[in-house]
């Protein structure tokens, strides 16, 4: 995954400059992989675009296929949108902390908010006929469809942490990658 390519190296250095350490971040993903980024964003929907651009850049550096990148970015957007809307209630004073890490043919994404957490068991299946026409409640479903593994936990401060992994070329719960 590492590369002596000068362009990639410059990109990597730029990302390190952009990245910001956050001493309050309780369990950061260690930056021991060759491709790693850390973002601290205020809770505004327009900042999802910043996270998306950073992840696309990282996926390009890692040589991911267009399809892999597309679905990884789709899952990232959902996790970040949930953190902003449901976790931080769009309070711009609260932050969303995002880590990306590419290592051994997989990408790991960690998104943490400063909200009050939620009970995963109360989230209905949006494909249940009784819920099919609901206008919301598909974000977690999106993540689970497009990533290999999705896990939720509580941050020490009470917020929600979602950690997602996608192995390159692996089948996800959807049939998209089989095509």
């Amino acid at each position, binding site marked *: 995954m590492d590369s002596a390519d000068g362009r990639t190296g410059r990109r990597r250095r730029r990302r390190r400059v952009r990245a910001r350490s956050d001493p309050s971040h309780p369990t950061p993903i260690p930056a021991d992989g060759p491709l790693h980024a850390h973002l601290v964003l205020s809770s505004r*929907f*327009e900042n*999802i675009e910043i996270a998306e651009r950073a992840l696309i850049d990282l996926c390009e550096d890692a040589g991911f296929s267009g399809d892999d990148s*597309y679905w990884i970015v*789709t899952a990232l*957007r*959902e996790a970040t*949108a949930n953190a902003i*809307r449901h976790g931080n209630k769009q309070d711009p004073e609260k932050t969303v902390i995002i880590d990306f890490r590419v290592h051994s043919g997989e990408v790991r994404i960690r998104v943490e908010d400063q909200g009050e957490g939620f009970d995963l068991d109360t989230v209905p299946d*949006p*494909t249940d006929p009784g819920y*099919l*026409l*609901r*206008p*919301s*409640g*598909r*974000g977690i*479903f*999106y993540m689970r*469809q497009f990533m290999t593994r999705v896990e939720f936990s509580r941050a020490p401060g009470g917020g929600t942490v979602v950690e997602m992994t996608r192995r390159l070329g692996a089948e996800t719960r*959807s*049939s*998209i990658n089989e095509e």
Partner: protein
Amino acid sequence: MKSEIRDVDDVRIIELSGKITIGSGDVKLRELVDGSLEEGQNNILIDLAGVTAIDSSGIGEMVACYTTVTKRGGQLKLLRLSPKINDILHVTQLITVFDVLDNVQEGLAAFK
């Protein structure tokens, strides 16, 4: 997200391009459909050929628009899905809800 509107007979065709995502595209979609209903255009064909991404908020807004139009006695149909938007409609099983047409001619005929 960008949009273009044109009316053919009694059908409003709304051509969308770009992203239908939270905080911008989803709101615009709602405004376009509400505006059509206010103008008495209850038959709406949404052309998604230029749409590159639709997140869960965009899909949710599409469902909400479908419900609103149906309650008004109109019809909302989708036109020209890109492969990825088609994938998303399949995994969410909303492909069973929406009438999806492959070209404008078919789309217009579907309202008759």
